[in-house]
């Protein structure tokens, strides 16, 4: 089984991504601070059909200094790393002028510094293996459109898009692809605070008059991780039911 690490793989988009990868024949290793009942039930289900295909690794991705050790421990426990999906993130919203300074720091730390550092060590593990690899960064449509109250979040997601393009060029010669998936609004814990009127407006403005769901995002990630996407790198796949079309 080829190993793919999915950060934030225990809830929301991440759990859908991890389950899809497990179903596609990979070992999905979900990273989060703790497990939850729904995730535990998914692991049980996966065990019945493909033992070992969905696993959990506890780690707080804010602990950037411990990332090298964490990646080494993953390699030790599971073997060579095929892919990394940088999905964990904070969705802090608020008007910039009144956002607390530590909130800005926290958001950039978890959404930018942490995935970049994790990618660094994952790429080194892939260099040891010498068999290429896959990096998928979960950005957002907000990286390229505007949404009041999401300026810092948007900055963090645009950072991932820029990171993706340059890194794709840098490590392309090693057969490692780097891509982004940019979801539109999807119902998860992160977006639970959205007002019904705002949600309805997003649907009304989407070409398909509906919202994408977590499974749609997972399908795009699974494609980019697959062998079929071997010649796709440095790009962004938007999954937003045509909201930004």
């Amino acid at each position: 089984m080829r190993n793919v690490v999915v950060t934030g793989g225990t809830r929301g988009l991440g759990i859908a991504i991890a389950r899809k990868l497990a179903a596609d024949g990979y070992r999905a290793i979900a990273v989060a601070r703790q497990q939850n009942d729904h995730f535990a039930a998914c692991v049980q289900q996966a065990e019945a059909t493909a033992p070992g295909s969905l696993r959990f690794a506890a780690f707080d991705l804010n602990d950037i200094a411990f990332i090298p050790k964490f990646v080494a421990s993953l390699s030790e426990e599971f073997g060579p790393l095929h892919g990394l999906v940088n999905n964990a993130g904070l969705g802090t919203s608020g008007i910039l002028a009144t956002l607390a300074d530590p909130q800005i720091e926290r958001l950039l730390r978890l959404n930018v510094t942490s995935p970049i550092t994790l990618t660094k060590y994952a790429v080194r593990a892939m260099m040891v293996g010498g068999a290429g690899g896959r990096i998928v960064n979960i950005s957002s449509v907000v990286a390229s459109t505007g949404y009041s109250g999401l300026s810092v979040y948007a900055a963090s997601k645009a950072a991932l898009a820029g990171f993706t393009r340059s890194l794709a060029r840098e490590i392309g010669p090693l057969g490692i692809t780097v891509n982004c998936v940019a979801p539109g609004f999807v119902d998860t814990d992160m977006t639970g605070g959205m007002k019904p009127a705002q949600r309805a407006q997003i649907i009304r403005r989407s070409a398909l008059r509906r919202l994408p769901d977590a499974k749609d995002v997972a399908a795009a990630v699974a494609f980019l991780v697959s062998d079929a996407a071997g010649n796709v790198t440095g790009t962004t796949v938007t999954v937003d039911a045509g909201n930004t079309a």
Partner: protein
Amino acid sequence: MTVRATVEATIVAVAGEHAKALPPLTDDLPLLDSGLDSLCLAVIVARLEDGLGVDPFSTSEEAVLPVTVGEFVKLYEDAAH
């Protein structure tokens, strides 16, 4: 295998994988004239960390690559002790 032999074997292997023609490895050969590019050097450093358990570059505040093959080997010999 000695540290020197491991380092040299890794350099030769990575150069081969990336189709880089290497001149004979002598201690005074400048790394940048060896035909290896910075990506190859990164792969060599990652492989040596895996093989020798040390990365002499990870402990420094700034990653400064040594100038010659001899200096590169010595960094690993010092770090492995």
